[in-house]
């Protein structure tokens, strides 16, 4: 599998290893995973109808949902 031509392996360097800034982004990502429990979600919803506020609403709705969430077909617009 690691012999795949052109495989980019940013997490450990590889045949198409990213630039220095990309590798830096990876380190930052590992050390700063988002923990939304540290953020008052209701505060997000006080915003207008932005993408960000709507994302928070969806997250809150999902927390209150018991149904199994499944993935749907990629070529079908919903």
């Amino acid at each position, binding site marked *: 599998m690691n012999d795949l031509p052109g495989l980019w392996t940013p997490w450990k360097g590889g045949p198409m290893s990213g630039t220095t800034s990309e590798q830096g982004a990876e380190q930052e990502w590992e050390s700063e995973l988002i923990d939304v429990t540290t953020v008052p979600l209701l505060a997000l919803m006080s915003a207008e109808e932005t*993408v960000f506020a709507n994302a928070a609403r969806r997250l809150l709705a999902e927390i209150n949902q018991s149904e199994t969430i499944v993935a749907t077909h990629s070529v079908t617009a919903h």
Partner: protein
Amino acid sequence: LTTAVERVAGWRPTPFREFVLKVTQRCNLVCDYCYVYTKADQSWRGRPPIMPAAVVATAARRIAEHADAHDLAEVHVILHGGEPLLLGAARLVDIAGVVRAAVGPRRRIRVSIQTNGVLLTTESLDILVANGIGIGVSIDGAAPDHDRHRRFARGRGSHAAVARALRLLGEPAHRPSFNGLLCTIDLATEPVRCYEEMLRHAPPSIDFLLPHANWADPPSTPNDAISYSEWLIAVFERWYGSPRQETRVPILEEIIHLILGGAGRSEHVGLSPVALVVIDSDGAIEQVDTLKSAYAGAAGTGLHVDTDALDKALAHPGIVARQVGVRALCDTCRSCAVHRICGGGNYAHRYSPGTGFRNPSVHCRDLFRLITHIGRRLREDLATLARSAA
């Protein structure tokens, strides 16, 4: 990766909720990137051009049987092709009626079509809307960009016909059936112009597809073009930065939702179980049709609605692999910091001859860059909110 092994580990299959019926094998366009006609699998040539009534009836019975066996509250049926409107709106309504009658009134059933839009008329829209059939339309931005790929057999572009159809679909009488637009990314297309052009049709959603490719058939990446991640990041910044959300962009919304810790609803990204099955025009029970881009027969299960319940497909290794989440990912993916968000990407894009589908996506590099970019933007906004709430 067998069903037996997964059951030992405590895993149970997720019932199918989405049923894709290949009601026709033909299309009135010859799009140059189509995964049905231009990729590895050419099985459409040997299947009935139109799904026979007997297959429709048996497929409907199998869907009802599956819904009953798992007591599903809702099922979603997608009438797909080829181009489904080649059958005419009245026949599509007939097919929907057969499925609805079989499933019965106790369960909610959503029916939709995915069309190139060319054959949508006021009359066909009236029929589809009156019968509660949702409509998704494929369009690739402005006319010069769209017409590079989505053409009639004689070479003429189809944008003018699709734009006319979208004007009709956007009328108040038809808008309740407007599900959204679907765009396949072309690096030669300017991304923000593409997004804004499609926004003119006021769609409820605009989804963007990475072109189907794999390690044996890699995506086209001209030297002078931007990357797929740069393309999607440009759209993300335009969409996310709007003072008011203008439309939904599922691929980007899913990534945001996954980064925030939610569960994904798209097979593009994330690790949620994929709960869809395809019934082809000859009654064959198949995996997702986009696998046809990998190799001939890739979507097959060896099952048929005449002889097999859909439950049997739940035990097929290819279906199982898409329902077991992180356990189906290769070691390289598992060691990546963003694998729970990326989910390995679209399954079809992981294929490599010899190693099958246990590989990173051929779009790995672009998915990683896109996800980390969106993650940075979210962290900045969350930090701002946390400071203001403190």
